[in-house]
C-alpha cells in the first residue's frame, strides 16, 4: 500500500467515513450500464441460483433457478440470461464510426492506411464484486464450447440457442476485465475502492455493503458502526440484514430458508416455485440497490480527461470481438498458446503503465501520491539559464532551476517528463541539486526544431511546474513471432485448428467443459 493510501485510511478511521483518493473519476461509466447481480449455489461449482439483471434500476429482470442441481433448469436459466444480456451487448454493434488504421498490405508488404469500422459505443457490465467477475468468467467458460441443435443436429443434449454465443461474450468481457483500466466489465467494489479509502482493511473492502457504509453512512452514524451493521447485523430469524453481494450466499440463508423452500419445490407443492423466486429476489435486491447507489456516488465525480481515450480502446476490443463472431471464428480456446499468452501479458503491462501515468496526469491527488513516493515533483521556477547542446547543430538545452519541497528519488542524468498545455510531453534530464530545496533540470525536447525555443515551451520564473520520473505514454513491448513460428524453446507451433476439433480435454474426466 502506498504511503498516501495509508494516510487516507488513517484519516478515514479518524473521521469515521471514507476519504477521497481521487478528485476525478478514472473509469468510464456508461450512460446505460447493464447491472448483473448473480447468486450461485453453495457446494456446486457453476450452478447459478438466480440473478437480477437489467439496465433499469426500477425494473430488473429476475431470473431464478428453483432447483439448481437440475441441469435442464440450469440451461433454462442460461437461455433466459442470454435473451436478456445479448440484445444489450449486440445493441452497440451497428452504430459505427470510421477510423483510419495502418495495415500491412499482404502483396507489397508496405503499411497502407485503411478505413476500418469502430463501434461508436460499447456495452458495459457492472457486477457487485471481484468474485462476480470470476463468476462471469466461469459462466463464459461453461457455455462457450456448448453446441446448439443448429450447430450439431446429431449431438445429444443440445444447448439452447444463443447460450454458446453468450458464453463467448462473457469470456471476452472476463478476459478484457484483466486489462488494467479497461471498463467493459467492472466490479462495483473495485470502482469504489479506486476512488475512496475506507477505515477498514483491503479484504473487508470486498464487502459491498460495508464499503458503501464507509463511503456514504446513514445520517448520524459513523462509517465504522454502519459497516459493522452491514457485515454482521441479523434479524430475529438469524438472517443477515444486509445479504452478501454474492455470488456466494450466506449459510444461514441456505440452511434455514433456501433448503426448506427447495424441498417444497422438489415435493411439487403448489406455489413453491413462486415462493423460491421471492426468496431469491429478497437476497438479490439489496445488492442490486447497492450497486446502483455506487453508480450514483461515482456519477458525482467528473470523468478524468484521459478516460475517453481508454474507453476507446474498450470500443476497439468490443469491435474486434464483434468481427470475430461475425466471421464465424471458433470460440476462444480453453488455454492461450504461448504467443497469445505473451502478447496478453505484454499488452496488460503496457496498459498498467499507461493507466498509472494517465491517472496521475488527470488528477492532482493521484499525482500527490506519486510525489510523496518520490516519483514526481512539483515546484516553482526560480531561474532559467539558456544553454546549447554541443555538436554540429547546437540545439537549445536550457537549464531550469526550481524550488521544491518534494523529495524525488533522482540520480544524475535521470529522465524527466512534463505535460505541456497542448497535451504533448516535454522531456528533460536531472542535472544536480542546487542550493538546499532547489533542483536543476535541463530541458531536452519539446521546444521545436529551431535554434530558439518555440514561445511558451520553456517555463519562466515563478511558473509552477510538475515533472514526473515516469513516462507519460509508455511504449508497448516488441513484436512476437506468429503462433505458427513458436520456437523450440516454447514447445514449437501449437497443434493447428485442423488437427483437432478441440484440444485434448482433461484425460481423466470424460466430460470436461469447465
Amino acid at each position, binding site marked *: 500500500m502506498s504511503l498516501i493510501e495509508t494516510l487516507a485510511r488513517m484519516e478515514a478511521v479518524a473521521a469515521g467515513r471514507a476519504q477521497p483518493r481521487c478528485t476525478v473519476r478514472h473509469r468510464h461509466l456508461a450512460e446505460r450500464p447493464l447491472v448483473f447481480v448473480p447468486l450461485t449455489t453453495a457446494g456446486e461449482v457453476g450452478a447459478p441460483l438466480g440473478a437480477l439483471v437489467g439496465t433499469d434500476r426500477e425494473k430488473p429482470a429476475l431470473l431464478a433457478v428453483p432447483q439448481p442441481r437440475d441441469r435442464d433448469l440450469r440451461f433454462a436459466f442460461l437461455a433466459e440470461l442470454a435473451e436478456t444480456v445479448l440484445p444489450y451487448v449486440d445493441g452497440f454493434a451497428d452504430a459505427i464510426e470510421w477510423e483510419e488504421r495502418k495495415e500491412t498490405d499482404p502483396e507489397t508488404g508496405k503499411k497502407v492506411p485503411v478505413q476500418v469500422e469502430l463501434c461508436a459505443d460499447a456495452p458495459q457490465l457492472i457486477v457487485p464484486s471481484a468474485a462476480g467477475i470470476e463468476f462471469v468468467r466461469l459462466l463464459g467458460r461453461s457455455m462457450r464450447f456448448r453446441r446448439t441443435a443448429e450447430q450439431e443436429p446429431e449431438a445429444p443434449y443440445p444447448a439452447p440457442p444463443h447460450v454458446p454465443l453468450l458464453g463467448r461474450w462473457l469470456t471476452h468481457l472476463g478476459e478484457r476485465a*484483466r486489462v488494467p483500466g479497461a471498463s467493459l466489465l467492472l466490479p462495483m467494489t473495485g470502482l469504489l475502492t479506486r476512488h475512496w479509502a475506507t477505515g477498514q482493511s483491503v479484504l473487508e473492502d470486498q464487502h459491498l455493503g460495508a464499503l458503501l457504509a464507509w463511503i456514504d453512512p446513514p445520517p448520524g452514524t459513523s462509517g465504522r458502526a454502519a459497516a459493522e451493521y452491514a457485515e454482521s447485523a441479523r434479524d430475529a430469524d438469524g438472517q443477515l440484514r444486509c445479504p452478501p453481494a454474492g455470488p456466494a450466499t450466506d449459510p444461514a440463508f441456505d440452511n434455514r430458508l433456501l433448503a426448506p423452500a427447495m424441498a417444497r419445490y422438489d415435493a411439487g407443492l403448489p406455489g413453491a416455485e413462486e415462493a423460491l423466486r421471492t426468496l431469491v429476489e429478497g437476497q438479490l435486491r439489496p445488492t442490486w440497490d447497492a450497486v446502483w447507489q455506487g453508480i450514483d456516488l461515482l456519477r458525482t465525480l467528473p470523468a478524468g480527461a484521459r478516460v475517453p481515450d481508454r474507453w476507446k480502446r474498450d470500443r476497439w476490443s468490443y469491435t474486434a470481438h464483434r468481427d470475430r463472431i461475425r466471421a464465424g471464428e471458433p470460440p476462444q480456446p480453453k488455454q492461450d498458446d504461448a504467443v497469445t499468452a505473451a502478447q496478453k501479458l505484454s499488452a496488460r503491462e503496457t496498459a498498467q503503465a499507461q493507466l498509472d501515468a494517465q491517472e496521475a496526469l488527470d488528477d492532482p491527488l493521484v499525482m500527490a501520491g506519486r510525489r510523496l513516493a518520490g516519483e514526481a515533483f512539483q515546484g516553482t521556477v526560480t531561474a532559467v539559464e539558456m544553454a546549447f547542446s554541443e555538436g554540429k547543430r547546437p540545439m537549445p538545452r536550457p537549464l531550469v532551476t526550481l524550488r521544491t519541497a518534494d523529495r524525488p528519488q533522482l540520480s544524475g542524468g535521470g529522465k524527466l517528463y512534463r505535460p505541456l498545455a497542448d497535451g504533448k510531453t516535454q522531456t528533460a534530464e536531472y542535472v544536480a541539486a542546487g542550493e538546499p530545496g532547489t533542483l536543476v533540470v535541463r530541458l531536452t525536447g519539446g521546444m521545436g526544431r529551431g535554434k530558439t525555443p518555440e514561445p511558451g515551451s520553456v517555463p519562466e520564473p515563478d511558473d509552477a511546474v510538475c515533472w514526473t520520473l515516469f513516462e507519460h505514454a509508455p511504449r508497448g513491448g516488441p513484436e512476437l513471432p506468429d503462433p505458427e513460428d513458436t520456437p523450440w*524453446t516454447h514447445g514449437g507451433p501449437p497443434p493447428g485448428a485442423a488437427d483437432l476439433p478441440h484440444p485434448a480435454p482433461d484425460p481423466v474426466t470424460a466430460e470436461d467443459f469447465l
Partner: protein
Amino acid sequence: MTAIQDPYPSTDGPFDPAAAAAAATDAILRDTLHGTRRGVVVDSPPGAGKSTLVVRAARELAAAGRPLMVVAQTNAQVDDLVLRLAEKDPQLPVGRLHSSEPGAFDPALAELPAVRTSAKIADLAGLDIVVSTAAKWAYTKVDEPWRHAIVDEAYQMRSDALLSVAGLFERALFVGDPGQLDPFSVVGAEQWAGLAYDPSSSAVSTLLAHNPDLPQHRLPVSWRLPASAAPLVSAAFYPYTRFRSGTGHGDRRLAFGVPGDGSGVDRVLDEAAESGWGLLELPARHTPRTDPEAVRAVAHVVRRLLDRGGATTSEAHGAAEGAAPAPAPLTAGRIAVGTAHRDQAAAVRAALAELGVTGVAVDTANRLQGREFDVTVVLHPLSGRPDATAFHLETGRLCVLASRHRHACIVVCRAGVADLLDEHPATEPVQLGVTVKFPDGWEANHAVLAHLAEHRVTWRP
C-alpha cells in the same frame, strides 16, 4: 536427464576446488561445442565464475569459426561482458548492439580497437561475437538465424523475453543462478500459472518444461563467497545442489587498524571481521519501511567500517603465489548496502551523505544482482515489519543480499523477525502444475536467522 555433476566426488581425499571447477567447465564446453542437443543449461551459484565461463565459451566458439550472439539482461551486464572479452583477447572482433538513445553503452567500449558499437545489426555483420540485451535483440530482425547463442542470467530472463528472441538462434547455452530473484510482472499472470510457457515464469523453466532432456550442468565452487559464507548460503538457498567455497578458512582476512570503542556498531564490526557474519539487532518495534533508527544504524556501520581503517587480505593467486598476500585497504567502492525497497535505499543514501560518506553502492536486491563487494551491509527485508508478505519472504531477495560479499556481511535488523515468521506462515494459493520451489522463503529466512543469531550484537541507539 543428464546426471548433474556432483560437487562431492564419492572418492575420499581432500576436495580440490580448482580441479572440480575445471572438470565442470570442461564438461560444459564439451556439450556446448560438440553436443547434439539444441540447448545446454548451466546453474551457477553466486560467484562461481559464471562470467568467466561465458567469456570462455564465447571465445572457444568464435575460435572454432562459429560466430555467435550473446544475450544478457541489462546494459551494464552487456558492457561488462564486452569489456571482459576484450580484456581476454584484445584482437577478438566483438560487436556491441545498443539502443539508439544517447549514453546507451559504456563510453569505455569506444576505446577498444576490436569492438564495434552500433544500433543497427547490419553494421555488425560478419563479427565473431555480437552482444546485446534481450530487450534490444527482441527488436532485431535477421535473415538467417545465428547458429549459436549464449543466454546469460537466464533465470532472471522472463519466458516471454526468450520467446521474442529464440527465433534468432538455432542452439544456445543458457547460464544463470537459480537462487536469485525470479522475474516478475507488475500485472497478475495467475491465469497462465501451471502452463509450461507461462510468460511470467523464468526462461529456464519454460525451456526445461518443453525440453526436459537437455543437458544440465552446475558450477560446484563459489570463488566469491568466503569459507564462512558458502556453507550457510548453500544450505539455506541451494539445499539440493550444494556448492563449496574455493577458499578455506583463514585464506581471507578482514582487520581494522583502529580498535573498537566498545559501542554496538564497533562490536558487530569486530564480530563480522572475526566470523564473516554480524547481526546488529535493534529493539523490536513496528516501523515504517524507512525506519529512521535502522537507516541511521546502517549508515553508522558503513561510517565506522571506513573510519576504523579496514583492510582486507585475500588468498594469493596468479604471480603472487607463494608470496604473502598483501592487505588492501577497504575503500568505499568495495562496500555495498543492500535493501529491499528503493525508498529504503534512498533513505540510506541520504543518511550516508549526512555522515559525509560517498562512493558506497546503495541499492535494492534487484539491482545488486550479479555484483560483488568486499563487505556488505544489509537492512533485513523483514526488519520492523508487522507482516511477512510474499515479496519480503522471497528466497531470491535474501539470497542476493546474503551472497554479494567476499569477506563479511553485516545485517541490521529489528528483533522479533523469527516471531514474525512464525506468525505469518505462507498463504499464497497453491497453483496446480507449478513446480514448487525449495526452499521456500519462510524456510530460508529461518535458516539464515538461526545462523545470524550466533553473531548477534544487540544495540539500543
